[in-house]
């Protein structure tokens, strides 16, 4: 591990009103690695991601990205480094904007030139045909929409991608395509991922290290090999593993 990891989260706590939903979570992700957060719904994994992305400002603890500590309010430069892909591709694209407009928006905000070329190149990178460019989101399939969402996250050339259940709203055959696309993109662009999912198979496919969350705490951090080999320590991890193996056999 190098001197400073790309993402360093230390004793992160998030509360909604009186209820504390994340109770002191710590993890580090070295540059170019993928870290997976698994847990059942309500375990606080998505909340960790939203605090990390800057969407939720009501947290305490310490978050550092690329060695620089960040506060609840983020500077515009932060959003060039860190981008997010949402769970539901039907809700994450503006319903009245063309794909072209959705993709050029980050470029306009950050004052990046060469909009025409960048939009075309990014569409090609996520394997969408150029014909899609001036369509509206409702004219695309779920998988195509999620590719657009990924393209939007990538277009300003971030270093970190936060993935909030990027495949759970898609059907199984499309899930594999999106996962492979994400794996390829990470290799080509040397991206750092934080992937949230309730699906152990998805996380183990993409991530080298995995944190298991339960009731707002990270109960275990282990490598994907250990998980596959069944070397989990915590009973909740074993339970999740049994469940997902059981599902695959069905």
């Amino acid at each position, binding site marked *: 591990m190098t001197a400073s990891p790309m993402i360093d989260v230390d004793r992160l706590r998030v509360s909604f009103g009186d209820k504390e939903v994340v109770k002191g979570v710590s993890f580090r992700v070295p540059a170019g690695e993928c870290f997976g957060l698994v847990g059942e719904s309500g375990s606080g994994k998505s909340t960790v991601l939203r605090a990390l992305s800057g969407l939720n400002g009501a947290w305490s603890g310490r978050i550092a990205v690329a060695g620089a500590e960040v506060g609840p309010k983020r500077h515009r430069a932060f959003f060039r480094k860190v981008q997010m892909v949402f769970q539901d591709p039907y809700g994450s694209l503006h319903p009245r904007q063309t794909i072209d*407009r959705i993709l050029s928006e980050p470029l306009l905000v950050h004052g990046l030139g060469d909009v025409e070329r960048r939009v075309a190149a990014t569409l090609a990178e996520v394997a969408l045909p150029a014909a899609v460019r001036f369509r509206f989101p409702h004219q695309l399939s779920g998988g195509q929409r999620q590719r657009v969402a990924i393209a939007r996250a990538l277009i300003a050339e971030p270093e970190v991608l936060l993935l909030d259940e990027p495949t759970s709203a898609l059907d199984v055959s499309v899930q594999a395509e999106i996962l492979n696309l994400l794996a390829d993109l990470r290799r080509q662009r040397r991206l750092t991922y934080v992937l949230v999912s309730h699906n152990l198979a998805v996380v183990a496919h993409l991530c080298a290290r995995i944190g298991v969350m339960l009731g707002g705490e990270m109960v275990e951090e282990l490598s994907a090999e250990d998980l596959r080999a069944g070397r989990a320590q915590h009973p909740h991890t074993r339970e999740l593993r049994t469940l997902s193996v059981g599902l695959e056999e069905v």
Partner: protein
Amino acid sequence: MSVAFTRDWLLAETPASRAQAAWGRRYRAWLGLRANPLAMIGLAVVVAFVLLALAASLLATHDPGAQDLANRLARPSAAHWLGTDELGRDIYSRILHGGRVTLGMVIAVVVLVAPLGLAVGCVAGYFGGLVDRVLMRVTDVFLAFPRLILALAFVAALKPGVESAILAIALTAWPPYARLARAETMTVRNSDFIAACRLTGAAPARIVLRHVAPLCVPSLVVRITLDMSSIIITAASLGFLGMGAQPPSPEWGAMIATAKRFIFEQWWVPTGPGIAIMLASLAFNFLGDGLRDVLDPKQR
């Protein structure tokens, strides 16, 4: 751009440029509207009224202010198609010219009210918290006043006239639009696509203007066309009460007001402007209903 606006070009499934995509969407909305006969009748009547008002000086048979006391309260005839009023003025010509005053008032009110309501509603809905509370209490204050009475008080405080009537109606008409825009904004403010906009690092002003406000516009347009009729009626009521357009200006409401003394003996004097008000209100209502079917984003 040298591209022809052909049907195929407009309905292309894969538009090749931003302009084509935008025009294609508009054309589909138009096709939807065209399929609704009542909306088309409404649109035709509205367009006809606007054209008649614009061409009033060409189409009028008489000068709307010219008095002919020897020929007052005359029945409809070949010389005076809709008869004459208590000063012998030709009612048909006065209705045409009155359309300019009445429709002009309506358009002026809408131009004042729509952007104000949209801005207040979007800002309150998007930012929430203290901003929302302050703006919405102000809105509530205006909403609490009976519309016609506030307008009356306002006109009475200023001088009676068209400009004061426009201001007075605008002052009482904006709160419902602010509420509507706020409600629309609150349904999208927590959506993922607005979260994604925030994650681009865009300033709040940019998000409200470019991403939130456009989503509120369709329902606001629908609501405004539906309210056009009530604006016409408020304008006419103010005229009727002597607080709107002043004589000899031929405003529809004022024309009915001065004719109320002869309503039983010389029924044709108030009937002409009355029918004009009714047709215009009805046409705007039909159009609004049709637009709601086409534009309402919730039905997509």
